């Protein structure tokens, strides 16, 4: 079994050839779908949630949008959109039912982005914001120089959640005539080829975990407080003196 899977994965003809209808094309479709749909959700969700969070409004919406998103099966939305509004024709590099898939994925990327951005903006210490106002910062400056940098780690964790979730969701598109790596798996079931099923599943799973781990690393680098602490620690180490700021554990 394991040998068959390795054989499938190392067989070049499974990756390229057949008029570009092989795994590498699926991988490209999958990555493209993930990036574009998350970007679409960011363009819509980020400004909306930053503004709502800054004004302290729309909390019910921001929190409930995630609960609603969880209750809607991906398969259902994809099937509804591909049979209805958007059809299932090929959309350029996005593949079969490209538009329906893209819109579905963007809709599923919205909740984590909106919820986390809103929560991140609200979690910024109110005293800090007041102090910034007291220093004579304008509304825009407070938003740009204080609230956004402090909220950045939580906002980014929303984007990370969205990416990982969309990567997973895009796999399911194959169940409803859609594009992406899921088609390797569904093809494996249709052709009754266990090696292909497992190989496809492995590729999908390994990249999902890499995305999660990699983005978690980026998120740690974005935390301004932790970054400042690291910088101070480094400077103090160079001077040979003890750390002046209490260096907490890096999150």
């Amino acid at each position, binding site marked *: *079994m394991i040998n068959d899977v390795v054989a499938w994965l190392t067989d070049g003809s499974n990756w390229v050839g057949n008029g570009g209808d092989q795994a590498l094309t699926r991988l490209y479709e999958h990555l493209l779908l993930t990036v574009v749909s998350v970007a679409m959700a960011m363009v819509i969700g980020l400004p909306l949630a930053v503004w709502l969070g800054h004004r302290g409004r729309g909390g019910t919406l921001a929190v409930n949008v995630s*609960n609603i998103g*969880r*209750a*809607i*099966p*991906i*398969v*259902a*939305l*994809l*099937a*509804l959109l*591909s*049979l*209805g509004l958007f059809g299932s024709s090929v959309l350029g590099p996005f593949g079969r039912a490209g538009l329906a898939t893209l819109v579905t994925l963007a809709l599923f990327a919205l909740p984590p982005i909106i919820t986390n951005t809103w929560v991140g903006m609200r979690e910024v210490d109110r005293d800090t914001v007041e102090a910034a106002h007291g220093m004579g910062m304008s509304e825009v400056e407070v938003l740009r120089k204080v609230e956004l940098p402090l909220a950045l780690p939580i906002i980014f964790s929303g984007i990370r959640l969205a990416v*990982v979730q969309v*990567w*997973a*969701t895009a*796999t*399911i598109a*194959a*169940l*409803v*005539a859609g594009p992406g790596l*899921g088609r390797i*798996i*569904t093809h*494996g*079931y249709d052709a009754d080829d*266990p090696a292909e*099923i*497992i190989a*496809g*599943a*492995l590729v*999908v*799973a390994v990249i*999902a*975990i890499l995305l*999660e781990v990699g983005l978690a690393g980026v998120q740690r680098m974005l935390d301004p407080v932790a970054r400042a602490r690291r910088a101070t620690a480094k400077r103090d180490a160079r001077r040979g003196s003890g750390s002046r700021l209490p260096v907490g554990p890096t999150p």
Partner: protein
Amino acid sequence: MTPSLVPTLSSVHAPAVDNCLTRNDWICGAYFSSSRVDALQTALLQHIGIVVTSVVLGFVIAFPLALLGRRYRKLEAVVVGGTTAIYTIPSLALFSLLVPVTGLGVETVVIGLGLYSLTILVRSMIEGLRAVPDDVRESALGMGYAPARLLWRVELPLALPTIMGGVRVATVSAVALTTVGAILDYGGLGSLLIEGSSTNFKAQVLFTSVLCIALAVALDLLLVGLQRALTPWQRTAASR
């Protein structure tokens, strides 16, 4: 649009049947023939069965893991990290990776969804137990509560709202994800959904979609009711 062509085409071959089925309308009363209602009923029962079994399975495994994780800090990191890694794996891939171990049956879907529930439940249990105030714990110990009695009579009741929150999230997610089980022919309503989608049967796709969401909402409300019944002290506190 293609749907408008359907009656014209069918009237060439088999004349005179013009109803919402041949027009392929989204909403169609004729869809509910007795054989389709039977199929819907079977699918709905399968769906509920898969959801309930997988969440219960996840709960039964999560509970001892959470207790162990609370006692041994290092184990907690392993448990939380491990379950998070599983949670990251897309459902279609997870089911497929389980197939060599658990076969092509309903067990694979139940175990896969159970693993997702496990992640959500372990976290909410650890979080809920950790949020129990230390002075409450100390007063219970001072009153002579043994560790087991402390857990069942003091800590778990206080952690219950957080744990029930986890159960709700796990259940609603499981309802949505069960549809993916259609790849193994055990997707409950998802099997009908995908059948409808591949045969371009709009009435079936819309109705099973709505039914899926209604099931998630119904189970969620049921759990809210259960939580209220289990925590009567919260109601009296709120009404005061």
